[in-house]
């Protein structure tokens, strides 16, 4: 127990070292899968591992455009069964944002 935590955090149960490591590994598997899908389905000429988790997907970042976004809507639905609505620009902020959205909306 961590007595200095405030009221909001007091219920937080921290994972052990091993559990935290395993959770991080699962998260990394998801982001790596998303990167591989982006590269394959958008025919990008690059290694998926060179896409970083937090880089912007559009414009100055990976350089995707609105046509790529339409393709990504389809790809994410195909691969994860998760629907992205076209007014949700935030989800394309980075691979990490896409991963957050998938985790929040995927049916167990």
């Amino acid at each position: 127990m961590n007595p200095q935590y405030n009221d909001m955090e007091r219920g937080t149960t921290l994972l052990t070292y091993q559990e935290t490591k395993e959770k991080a590994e699962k998260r990394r598997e998801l982001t790596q899968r998303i990167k591989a899908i982006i590269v394959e389905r958008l025919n990008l000429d690059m290694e998926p591992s060179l896409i970083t988790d937090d880089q912007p997907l559009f414009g100055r970042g990976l350089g995707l455009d609105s046509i790529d976004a339409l393709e990504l809507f389809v790809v994410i639905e195909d691969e994860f069964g998760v629907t992205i609505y076209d007014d949700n620009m935030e989800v394309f902020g980075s691979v990490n944002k896409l991963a957050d959205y998938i985790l929040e909306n995927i049916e167990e």
Partner: protein
Amino acid sequence: MKTTLLTKNIMNDHACRVADGYAVVSAYTDVNEEYCVLRGGVGLIDLSSVGKIKVTGESHVEFINALVTKEIEFLDIEKSLYTLLLDGDGQVIDLVNVYKTEDAILIETSITKRSAVLAWLNERKVDDVEIEDLSEMLAMIGLEGPYAWKLGQRLIDFEISSLPFQAFVEIDWNGHHVFFARTGVTGEYGYKIIVQMDVAHQMWETLLGYADEDVKVQAVGMDALEIAMMEVRQPNMTVEGNELTLYEACLEWLVSFDKEDFAGFDAIHSMREQGVKQRLIGFVTNPDHMLDANDSVVVEDTNVGKVLQICYSPSLDKKLGLAVIQEEFSVSGIDLEGLNQNGERVLIQTQSSPYTFPKSWSIKII
């Protein structure tokens, strides 16, 4: 401490800091108020201390292309590009913005690395290029905010919506030659104006005078600007440019790995083969927690990293930070602990960038 003419004219008794020997205003009023202007109106930013280096000569494009990590040989005229400059060991010298004109390349450096960039260019100089440091002759003023385009429109005689991101035009303003570029660092609409230093104050006052009932226009200092930059994970060379490799700082997206060669090319490929042991990740913690740069990040009793930067984010109402963490833990969505100088542990939660949603992403230029 050196002070540019524009800064001298507007700094008054505002809080200042020193970057690479130059005075920059930290805040003109209140940091939170200035932050709200950046996210809701138009922030006017004195960037007159950034380095502005002009490179000309028969092989100037080839010369710069051999030094930067992005391919610029086929960059169009009146286009700009963010790219890294690496030294021979693959360490980041600076993140620069390269502007290509018909017969020259203008390099905009960060404030803190302007001397290092100039020294590096001169060290690698070849016979048929000329390197001219225009930093004292030219000022730079940034416009950042969801309505920055409204202000920019007042300076140009064509539809501002037709100016794409990372494009620029050369215009006449009251008889003075001015660069007007669309390029930003906060996720909001951003423009930069490069103008002769001796008329920069006149330009500054003119821009402030464009404020009206609809759009708040206000001078914004470096403190608020750096918060907004961190919220969208825009690299800040005072943080990412020290100690870290480009992989640790997650700057791969600023490198064309299919480019045949550039300074530092062999070194960064060798680094990649050796593997990355730590990486930068964003995190939040509650605003009342005491946690500072250089404090440790731990999992149980194991030290897994350290805090590099931390500030209060008004949008999140939390402290937002960047920490360099052992690679196996450097992912978004996990709970870790910060260990402060008093030996207290505070909960930190790793986050996905961008940490806030810029208003400009939902506003169209009309």
